[in-house]
């Protein structure tokens, strides 16, 4: 499969759906990818087995907030700076790129960067969705070392982080991100082609392209009734009239409740699709009155393991004590739906891997 400008719109739409409401500005990075494909030609997508088993695969992406990303749209040199360092640190040539996260803007960033470098993309990614932290990856769960990790900006200013685990990578990278002005390019969890099948989420790129062409059937279709803190109420319309669901969100949509029942929860993917355009609506784009279909997609099975749930499940986002989907949730019954609760407790995340900016509330927010 090749990604060209004919496939890109569907692929980008699929990436936005897999972003689960987060993952940065897809429309901005789709434009970057479109220009890259126009100038450099299509990007080849390969299965890991098509590469030499020892070939170095470079996961990569952009880290920061979408508010910065739409302003600081990026240069063209970042992937070359990353590649140069990665090759030096690992002592062999990079033969393919892989999106660190398929969900959101980074799915498109990887296409642009592969086009710039003239390298193929491996049909895989680190998450199968979007997550706010750098260490929330399948590679982390499969024991691939995150380091040496390379961070850089458009000018080639570079930071190498080594001898740390995923947690510490996240901790140190946050500090670098601030110093870089809220946006940086990164490559971590570098691996060999022979490790890709067992240690990543494979099939991500074909999944995104397929999703963009065949959007999933929604759990409910309705109108955004309130957006308050991290709580969103959606009132059912048409066949779903009379239903009311609550969605909890941080950088991504995390859980969907109806009458105290849990309809969906992270690490599964929750997407809100604009009923007119079919495009995924990101957390920071939500506003009163939008007509949306609420969609749930299965996450990769690696996130269902105990270790996967610890790293990327509800408790990693401060949502504790959730039952399995459709189970009754004590203390969160219908009255809770009439008044949305405040933001969820949990670790404060000023910026995710590519998370949304803090959203202002009230009418001013709609500017």
């Amino acid at each position, binding site marked *: 499969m090749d990604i060209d400008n004919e496939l890109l*719109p569907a692929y980008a*739409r699929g990436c936005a759906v897999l972003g689960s409401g987060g993952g940065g500005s897809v*429309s*901005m990075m*789709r*434009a*970057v990818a*479109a*220009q*890259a494909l126009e100038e450099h030609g299509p990007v080849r997508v390969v299965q890991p087995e098509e590469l030499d088993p020892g070939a170095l695969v470079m996961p990569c992406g952009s880290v920061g907030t979408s*508010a910065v990303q*739409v*302003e*600081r*749209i*990026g*240069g*063209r*040199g970042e992937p070359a700076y990353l590649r140069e360092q990665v090759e030096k640190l690992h002592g062999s040539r990079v033969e393919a790129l892989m999106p660190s996260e398929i969900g959101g803007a980074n799915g498109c960033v990887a296409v*642009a960067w592969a086009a710039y470098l003239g390298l193929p993309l491996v049909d895989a990614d680190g998450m199968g969705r979007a997550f706010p932290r750098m260490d929330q990856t399948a590679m982390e769960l499969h024991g691939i070392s995150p380091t040496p990790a390379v961070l850089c*900006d*458009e*000018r080639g200013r570079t930071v190498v982080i080594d001898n740390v685990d995923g947690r510490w990578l996240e901790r140190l990278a946050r500090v670098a991100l601030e110093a870089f002005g809220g*946006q940086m390019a990164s490559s971590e969890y570098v691996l060999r082609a022979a490790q890709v099948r067992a240690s990543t989420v494979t099939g991500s790129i074909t999944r995104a392209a397929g999703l963009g062409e065949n959007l999933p059937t929604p759990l409910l279709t309705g109108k955004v009734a309130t957006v308050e803190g991290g709580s969103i109420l959606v009132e059912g319309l048409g066949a779903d009239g009379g239903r009311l669901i609550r969605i909890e969100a941080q950088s991504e949509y995390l859980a969907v409740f109806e009458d105290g029942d849990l309809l969906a929860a992270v690490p599964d993917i929750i997407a809100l699709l604009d009923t007119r*355009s079919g*495009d995924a609506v990101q957390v920071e784009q939500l506003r009163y009155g939008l007509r949306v279909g609420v969609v749930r997609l299965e996450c990769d099975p690696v996130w269902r393991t105990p270790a996967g749930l610890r790293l990327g499940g509800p408790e990693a986002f401060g949502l504790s004590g959730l039952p399995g989907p459709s189970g009754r949730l004590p203390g969160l019954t219908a009255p809770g739906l009439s008044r949305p609760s405040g933001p969820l407790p949990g670790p404060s995340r000023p910026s995710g891997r590519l998370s949304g900016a803090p959203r202002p509330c009230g009418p001013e927010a709609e*500017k």
Partner: protein
Amino acid sequence: MNIGVDVGPTNTDAAALDDAGAVLATVKVASVQGDPVAGVVAALTALGSAGATRIAVGLRGAATAVAERAGLCRVAALRIGGPSAQAVRPFFGWPADLREAVEAGAGIVDGELGPLPVSLSADLGSLGLIKRENATILDAALSRFALDTAERLALALPGAAVFVTRGDGTLLTSSPRLKPGDSHPRGWELPVSPQVAPGTDPSRGLTPAPQAFHLSASPAAKTRTGRLGYRPPVRIHGPYQEKGNGMRKS
């Protein structure tokens, strides 16, 4: 007495209201194709605008001009930005015919420009480099249209403060953009909302006619510009200008 005029593609409607907001009279006249001001004048004549102290005019000309690619100035776009502003070039993703009608050249520069009339993106758009840049290019493209319309309206409606309506129904008061020390008009702000700028979000494409065309003139503006020796008494505002003490159209 307040008068509101709305110029549509087929008809121009006008209503006169007393100071308490009660409707005194309404008229409907045929719009004049390609000449919105003629429709305004005809409606005001039919209504009898002698006692008017304020007149609000809603026009669609700017959005139509963009949709029809007619009467647009050609624009050279210079993006002032460094290495972090390179990944998408100006005009990328615009519909080919609109781009052909507008683009006179584009470049990304790192430097300063001399004293030229400038459309300032910071005054026009919200967050988002490409969206804001596209809105600014269209603003400049519409400058001749805006100037002509503003001058003709000012001539056609002497003696009254002219306000303009925004697409959301609110009114703008004049807010002179000339500051003491300026040697030239600083450009015309036009109601091209970043949401309608083409190419910014290819999934949506060009949304037609989302905003009315807005301009205003008031004695205050005349006095101020007159004192400073500037000619244009009419200001044209974009939708992201501060709201002023906007009066709501009922």
